[in-house]
C-alpha cells in the first residue's frame, strides 16, 4: 500500500517510520528541507507536566514511555556515529511564587495525579536541592520525574534516516499543489506537486502549522492556525539548570486561546551546555520578525525564576509556529469528508513529544488494528471542531 506523507517535520518523520516499519511504501514530500519548519525551531519538549487531564495528557503519558524505547531503537538501528537525539529524562519542576499561583498549581497537580501522572508536591527546600539556583521565594513546587527533552532536529533526522533504511523515499524541495481524486471525487488517490504526480492509497497531512494550507490545497480545509513563540539561547555555561523548570504561569498559557502576547518563564539546559529560555505565545499569523518587546518580557520572567540569568548573554534567538486547533486538541485520523485522506497535526506546543504516539495511532487506523489509545477524542469530526470545519471541495 502506497502512502504519501506531506511534511518532513517531526510528525511526518514519525509517521514515515511507523508506516515503513509496518511494510507500507512511503513517500514523504517536503516543500523545503527536512525539519525546516517548527521542528527545528522548538525546544524538544517531552512533557506530561503541562497538560490538563484529558486525552492530550493521556497521549503524553503514553509518549513518555514510548520515547525512551525509541531512543534505544534508533541508536541500535543507526549506530553510534549517527548524531545522538540527546534524549534526556531530566524531569520537570514547576514553581509558583504567589499564593494564588501555588493554590492553582497544587490543585492542578492533584488532578494530574488522579489521571496517573507522577506529580510529586515538594517543599521549597526540596525544590532548591533539585535546583539550587532557583529564586528561593518559592510558594509551591511540583516535581514531574517523567518530563524529558530531546534534540528535536536530530530526532527528525533520525526518524527519517530510520524510515529511509526501511525503504521510505523523502523528496525535498517538492511542494504539494493539489489532490488527485478518483472519478467520484470522494476519494483521494494521490497528490499533484510542482514536480510530479504521486499516486497513493492514502495521503497523510503532517504539515504542522501549514497543514491548514495543505488541507485547503487538497480540497479538505482544516482549521489549524499558527501560534508563534520565541526562545532565547545563551552561550555554553557551567551546568546550573538540571531539569526543565518553569513558572506555574506556563500551564495557563498553553491552555488559553488569548490573542494577545503571553509570556511565561521556561528554562532548561541542553546537552551542548547552552540554556534555552522561553516562552511566548502570539497569534501573528506567520510573521516571525523579531519583536524586542517579546524577548524582553521573556528575559524578565526568566530572571525572576533564576536570578543568575541576569548576567547570562543572549547569544541567539529563534522562533517557531505551533500548529493549534481551535479546541486545543490535535487531529489524528481520517478525514470523514474525503476517503483516503488523513490528518496528523494540531499538536500546538507538544508536537515533538506526541509525534511518535500519534504516528502509532495513525498506523493502527490504517491497518484497522487496535490503537494504543482511543483515537475518538482526536477525530476530525468531533463536536468541538464542527463549528470550525468547512465542507470539503
Amino acid at each position: 500500500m502506497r502512502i504519501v506523507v506531506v511534511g518532513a517535520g517531526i510528525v511526518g518523520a514519525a509517521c514515515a517510520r511507523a508506516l515503513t516499519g509496518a511494510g507500507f511504501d512511503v513517500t514523504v514530500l517536503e516543500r523545503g528541507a527536512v525539519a525546516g519548519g517548527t521542528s527545528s525551531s522548538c525546544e524538544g519538549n517531552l512533557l506530561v507536566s503541562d497538560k490538563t487531564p484529558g486525552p492530550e495528557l493521556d497521549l503524553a503519558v503514553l509518549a513518555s514511555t514510548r520515547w525512551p524505547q525509541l531512543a534505544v531503537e534508533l541508536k541500535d538501528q543507526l549506530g553510534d556515529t549517527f548524531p545522538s537525539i540527546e534524549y534526556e529524562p531530566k524531569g520537570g519542576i514547576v514553581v509558583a511564587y504567589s499564593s494564588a499561583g501555588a493554590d492553582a498549581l497544587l490543585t492542578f497537580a492533584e488532578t494530574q495525579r488522579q489521571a496517573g501522572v507522577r506529580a510529586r508536591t515538594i517543599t521549597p527546600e526540596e525544590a532548591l536541592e533539585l535546583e539550587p539556583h532557583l529564586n528561593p521565594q518559592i510558594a509551591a513546587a511540583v516535581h514531574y520525574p517523567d518530563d524529558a527533552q530531546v534534540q528535536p532536529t536530530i530526532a527528525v533526522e533520525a526518524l527519517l534516516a530510520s524510515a529511509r533504511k526501511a525503504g521510505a523515499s523523502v523528496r525535498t524541495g517538492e511542494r504539494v499543489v493539489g489532490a488527485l481524486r478518483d472519478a467520484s471525487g470522494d476519494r483521494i488517490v494521490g497528490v499533484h506537486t510542482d514536480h510530479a504526480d504521486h499516486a497513493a492509497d492514502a495521503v497523510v497531512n503532517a504539515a504542522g502549522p501549514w497543514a491548514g494550507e495543505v488541507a485547503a490545497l487538497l480540497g479538505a480545509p482544516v482549521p489549524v492556525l499558527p501560534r508563534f513563540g520565541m526562545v532565547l539561547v545563551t552561550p555554553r555555561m557551567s551546568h546550573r539548570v538540571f531539569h526543565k523548570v518553569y513558572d506555574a504561569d506556563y500551564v495557563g498559557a498553553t491552555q488559553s486561546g488569548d490573542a494577545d502576547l503571553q509570556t511565561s518563564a521556561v528554562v532548561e539546559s541542553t546537552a551542548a551546555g547552552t540554556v534555552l529560555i522561553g516562552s511566548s505565545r502570539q497569534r501573528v499569523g506567520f510573521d516571525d520578525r523579531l519583536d524586542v518587546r517579546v524577548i524582553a518580557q521573556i528575559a524578565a520572567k526568566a530572571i525572576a525564576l533564576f536570578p543568575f540569568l541576569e548576567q547570562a548573554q543572549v547569544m541567539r534567538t529563534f522562533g517557531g509556529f505551533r500548529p493549534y486547533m481551535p479546541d486545543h486538541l490535535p487531529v489524528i485520523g481520517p478525514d470523514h469528508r474525503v476517503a483516503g485522506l488523513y490528518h496528523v497535526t494540531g499538536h500546538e506546543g507538544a508536537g515533538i513529544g506526541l509525534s511518535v504516539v500519534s504516528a502509532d495511532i495513525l498506523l493502527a487506523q490504517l491497518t484497522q488494528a487496535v490503537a494504543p489509545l482511543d483515537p475518538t477524542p482526536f477525530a476530525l469530526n468531533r463536536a468541538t471542531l464542527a463549528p470550525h470545519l468547512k465542507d470539503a471541495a
Partner: protein
Amino acid sequence: MSARAVPPAQDPVRPHPAAAVEIEFEGRTYRGVLGQSIAGILLANDVVDWRTTSVHQSPRGLFCGIGVCFDCVVTVDGVSDVRACQRRVRGGEHVERQHISPPSPSQEH
C-alpha cells in the same frame, strides 16, 4: 620566538610614555599600559592562550582581533564571555580562563 610589545625605543611611531596598568591572570600579575586590551597585555607578555575549549580542551587565544570570532573570551571580575581583544584594561582586573565542560546527562529521578 614570542609575541611581544614593540619595544618603544625601536618603535618607528615614536610612542610617548604611557601610564602603566596591571591585570591579574592565573595567579600572576601582568603589566601593560593604559589603552591596551586584555589580549594586548597578555600577548605583550608572550601569553598566547587564555581559554580552554570545552570538547577537546584545546588552548585558544587571539584569532580575529576585531571582536567577531569570540575565541578570545575570558571572565573578567566574575563576568563571563568578555572578548579579551575588545575590552580595554582600566587597571586591576581579575581575569580568568574560561573552560566550560559540557554538562553530564542528568540521572533519572
